[in-house]
């Protein structure tokens, strides 16, 4: 028994550790100051796929990502950890996509990849925190979804059994395949890079990367076909350009505001006994506490 699995992954700016230079003076985000990383929960999702591959040798994992050329890093990162193949969906026409236009593009790419048993994705990406793309891709493909998954308990050719998070508990559900699951950050973390795979795939490139870096003449890409990362445009996946990018996005950003908090005049105290004594007395006297 072997499975064809597609992992949906996104390269995101690391919004968790935002330094002082992350915002420009005009209140917009200085993307250059934020390192681009593999979206954390997509790594949890990839681990679930790798685990299935380990349990069922012969299974095949394809990582699918949409983004600019540099998002090919996501595909290499997958290969370093044990995935088999990668597809970069990249085209200027995808720019400005909201979650619905993104889901449409991804679903068209999934159709082009063809036969699959399971799609896994992170619950949400840290740059948008919307958790919408997974369920929307599932809807576009007409397959069931299991969100907030923590573990794939069992899988066979007909169905999958998954433990998932609830707001106030856990649930185990069973669902026929093909299906899409989104994996929660509380699932186990992804295995590290494998040194052998790192050696094998470190020169894996998309066609654009090879052209830009003048690597076209190097024959390793014809000798080792596994070093060629797939790159698809709107036309390649036969997508309707009107449904992609900005024009395919029902939501529009009306404006962006810098976050400004109302500063208060605060009373400054030290940690010596007199100050703390005074503070506690004041709070009790004005019935704030006690």
């Amino acid at each position: 028994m072997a499975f064809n699995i597609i992992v949906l992954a996104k390269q995101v700016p690391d919004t968790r550790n935002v330094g002082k230079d992350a915002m420009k003076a005009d209140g917009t985000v200085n993307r250059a100051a934020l390192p681009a990383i593999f979206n954390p929960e997509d790594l949890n999702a990839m681990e679930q796929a790798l685990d299935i591959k380990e349990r069922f040798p012969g299974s095949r994992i394809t990582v699918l990502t949409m983004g600019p050329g540099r998002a090919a890093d996501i595909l290499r990162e997958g290969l370093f950890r044990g995935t088999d193949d990668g597809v970069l969906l990249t085209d200027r026409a995808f720019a400005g996509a909201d979650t619905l236009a993104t889901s449409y593009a991804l679903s068209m790419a999934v159709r082009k990849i063809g036969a699959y048993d399971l799609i896994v994705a992170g619950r949400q990406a840290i740059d948008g925190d919307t958790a919408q793309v997974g369920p929307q891709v599932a809807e576009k493909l007409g397959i069931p979804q299991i969100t907030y998954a923590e573990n794939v308990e069992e899988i066979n050719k007909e169905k999958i059994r998954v433990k998932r998070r609830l707001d106030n508990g856990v649930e185990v559900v069973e669902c026929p395949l093909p299906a899409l699951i989104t994996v929660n950050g509380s699932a186990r973390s992804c295995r590290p890079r494998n040194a052998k795979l790192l050696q094998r795939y470190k020169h894996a490139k998309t066609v654009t990367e090879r052209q830009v870096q003048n690597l076209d003449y190097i024959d390793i890409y014809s000798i080792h076909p596994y070093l060629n990362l797939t790159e698809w445009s709107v036309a390649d996946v036969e997508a309707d350009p009107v449904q992609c990018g900005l024009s395919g996005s029902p939501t529009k950003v009306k404006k962006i505001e810098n976050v400004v908090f109302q500063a208060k005049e605060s009373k400054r105290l030290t940690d010596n006994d007199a100050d703390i004594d005074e503070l506690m007395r004041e709070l009790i006297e004005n019935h704030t506490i006690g």
Partner: protein
Amino acid sequence: MNNLFVYLEIEEGTVAEVSLELLTKGRSLANQLSCKMEAIAAGANLDGIAQQVFPYGVDVLHIFHDERLSPYMTLPHTSILVELFKKEQPQICLMGATIIGRDLGPRVSSALGSGLTADCTSLEIGDHEEKKAGKIYKDLLYQIRPAFGGNIVAWIINPDHRPQMATVREGVMKKEILDPYYQGETVEHTVSEYVKEEDFVISIIDRHIEKSKVNIKNSPIIVSGGYGVGSKENFQLLYQLADVLGAEVGASRAAVDAGFTEHERQVGQTGVTVRPKVYIACGISGQIQHIAGMQDSSIIISINNDPGAPINTIADYVIIGEVEKVIPKMIKYYRKNTK
């Protein structure tokens, strides 16, 4: 037609807090738009729902009663909303940014091709001018939410697609009864006209519900710790102070990520929004996403060894010092002054 709809989350016959909060917000938006507010209840054991929600100003309650609709499952609930919305053409649909709402909302929005904004912190009605097209859109829903890890606030609109859909986290909107005697109309639907047999492909094998032990949302005093508390052991000091003051313990995302305490206690945009009488922030630097979840506290006390910590600017009292030194003194002098 063209009314505002709220999806009700129901567990064992009780409407979730977040849904009641949305009804309160929905009522005021519906008043501004001069439209009706309608609510959707899908599940089993729905007899008490009408009397729970009418006081919040629901004009029409749509009932979908079927044993198989409870507990919540994605596909049948999606079909209900999609088919109902095709008939009713709502202009707005609100749901909780809970695990259910964030599972259901995107599926419905994709099926209807309408826009959805997740985790809104504010909802307003206003106009929008598309300058290039010379077009003016009247009475759109401004869906206001933090973006980019909480570092900016984005105002999102859906000019051309309906319904305008938004999810909102629990605690963000305030729940308020409009009129205890408000009477709406109840419409019972035939579930089989909405839901297909194939929608029941997923089966729930096992389900454990744990009643949450933590109730920081309704606590008048919160002692909250950040990464600066330093360790799980030091976090015990916060519990001691909370115990003495009759408070609950909260935490920042960094403290939860570091494993100092459990996720249920997380305050902020990705946790709970709180408005206590007193918020004592211990070793919390004050990332925007945290401040957004507690800035409406009446009195904020910051304990921090960094005089430049951003949270100090919104605090009423700033104690510059080490958390492990200050808290025992607060306990000591609280006891002394209450005697």
